[in-house]
């Protein structure tokens, strides 16, 4: 118990570290007048989601034994301080081997980063207060139910037999399709795609990628919810998929465009991490390398689609998270191995024959896309019609840093005077 608890708590901290990692990964890719806006959208998730989670969202996500949604019995986490207390959905063979509060903390970090992933399409033009409302509403109406369906052993997709070790559907497909729904309402950045929008700091993006890769060990290996061999398998799978995806992306990039780029290396690694997320505790051997390599190559091609279809997926949330999540979730149907994890019944293609698991995976992918895409679109529409979703032109031109937060990210030199007025 002690060892398991130590690992799950450490993993929770690792997963939290991914959110600032994501903030820098995204922040480096925007123009310098929008970098604080980007960082703030991500950091703010650590604030709002933590509070809502403790107050009632953990309860509606993981409480009760219903198939579609939790209940309100764990509101305020009141009974969970007792280490002998039990989360009802985790009974029998699914009983947790860590204290309930360790599980609450670990799941909280997932709830923080998942909506933060969506911010990659909101760059340069989303009103901050619109994001505040969207974030809270999305957590309640989209994240909580889908986490319940897939992660909780009583959820309908879990019971169906669909597998998602650490969040291919719950996190990546969920955020990716929500991003697509949001930009349908939000529209393109002013000047896209004709104007150049220079990435202001690739070093920040690489730094963020390193933080994400590091934190992802908690995300995937922590999802074993125990300090055991399965965690070790997930740990190694995570690393190797990221590595192979970096290579896959760079190979295609080099063949198509002539250069292997740093942004390509970073994006490829993230695509691999996304794709291995659902698979991490179900595959072994060289499978993660194959999955990663495929994800890197496919995501590279997927991000070109935005120019063909004219949607402004500014930081490629759709191309990397939606597509990478689908690649991982479906490949799991082919590569899952009972030898790695006996904890599933359905047949899988390469290690046991049959397409049964692939079918369940497809159902989970579709269900997530329909619910998240639909509700996210409605939320964006409602916000757009009430408090407004998008900055006015003037605010967008000035940049989010100044217009939304009254701050400047970088002040070099002594030019300019600044007087205190209040």
């Amino acid at each position, binding site marked *: 118990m002690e060892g398991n608890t130590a690992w799950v708590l450490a993993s929770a901290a690792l997963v939290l570290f991914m959110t600032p990692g994501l903030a820098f990964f995204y922040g480096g890719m925007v123009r310098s007048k929008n970098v604080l806006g980007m960082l703030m959208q991500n950091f703010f998730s650590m604030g709002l989601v933590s509070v809502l989670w403790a107050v009632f969202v953990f309860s509606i996500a993981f409480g009760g034994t219903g198939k579609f949604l939790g209940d309100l019995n764990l509101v305020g986490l009141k009974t969970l301080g007792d280490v002998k207390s039990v989360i009802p959905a985790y009974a029998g063979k699914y009983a947790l081997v860590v204290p309930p509060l360790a599980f609450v903390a670990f799941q909280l970090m997932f709830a923080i980063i998942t909506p933060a992933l969506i911010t990659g399409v909101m760059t340069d033009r989303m009103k901050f207060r619109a994001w505040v409302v969207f974030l809270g509403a999305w957590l309640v109406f989209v994240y909580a139910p889908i986490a319940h369906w897939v992660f909780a052993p009583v959820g309908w997709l879990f019971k169906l037999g669909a597998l998602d070790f650490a969040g291919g559907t719950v996190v990546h497909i969920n955020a990716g399709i929500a991003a697509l729904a949001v930009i349908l309402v939000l529209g393109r950045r002013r000047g896209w795609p004709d104007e150049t929008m220079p990435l202001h700091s690739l070093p920040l993006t690489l730094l963020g990628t390193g933080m994400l890769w590091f934190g992802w060990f908690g995300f995937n290996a922590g999802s074993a919810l125990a300090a055991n061999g399965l965690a070790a398998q997930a740990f190694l799978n995570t690393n190797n998929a990221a590595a192979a995806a970096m290579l896959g992306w760079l190979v295609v990039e080099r063949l198509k465009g002539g250069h292997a780029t740093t942004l390509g290396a970073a994006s490829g690694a993230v695509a691999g991490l996304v794709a291995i997320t659902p698979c991490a505790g179900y595959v072994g051997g060289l499978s993660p390398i194959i999955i990663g390599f495929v994800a890197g190559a496919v995501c590279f091609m997927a991000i070109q689609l935005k120019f063909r279809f004219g949607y402004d997926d500014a930081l490629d949330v759709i191309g990397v998270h939606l597509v990478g999540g689908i690649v991982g979730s479906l490949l799991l149907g082919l590569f899952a191995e009972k030898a790695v994890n006996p904890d599933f019944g359905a047949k899988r293609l390469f290690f046991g024959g049959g397409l049964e698991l692939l079918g369940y995976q497809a159902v989970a992918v579709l269900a997530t896309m329909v619910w998240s895409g639909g509700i996210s679109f409605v939320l964006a529409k409602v916000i757009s019609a009430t408090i407004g979703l998008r900055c006015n032109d003037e605010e967008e031109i000035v940049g989010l840093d100044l217009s939304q937060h*009254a701050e*400047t990210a970088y002040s070099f030199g002594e030019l300019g*005077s600044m007087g205190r*007025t209040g």
Partner: protein
Amino acid sequence: MKLITAIIKPFKLDEVKEALRGLGVQGMTVSESQGFGRQRGHTEVYRGTEYTVDFVPKVRVEVLADDSDVDRLAGAIVSAARTDKIGDGKVWITPVEQAIRIRTGEMGADAL
């Protein structure tokens, strides 16, 4: 020969560039700059304290032009950069003694 210098709002740069290109201008120099005119600066907030920042970010556009083109080009800049709001900037024109294209050594109007 004249030098046209324009201080404009940064987001108007693309329109000004296109307007000048449309009139056959072959080159220009652009730099980010800061300053103030009648437009006030803006306010920033750090840990609850408000500060005014006097200098507003602007873009400085410089174009060398033959005497006969100057009025046309300056007019194009003015109409492309105008928003009718305070802070649209300024255009001024100064005489230029000589210009030399470095690569060929051409001088005067040939160097434009």
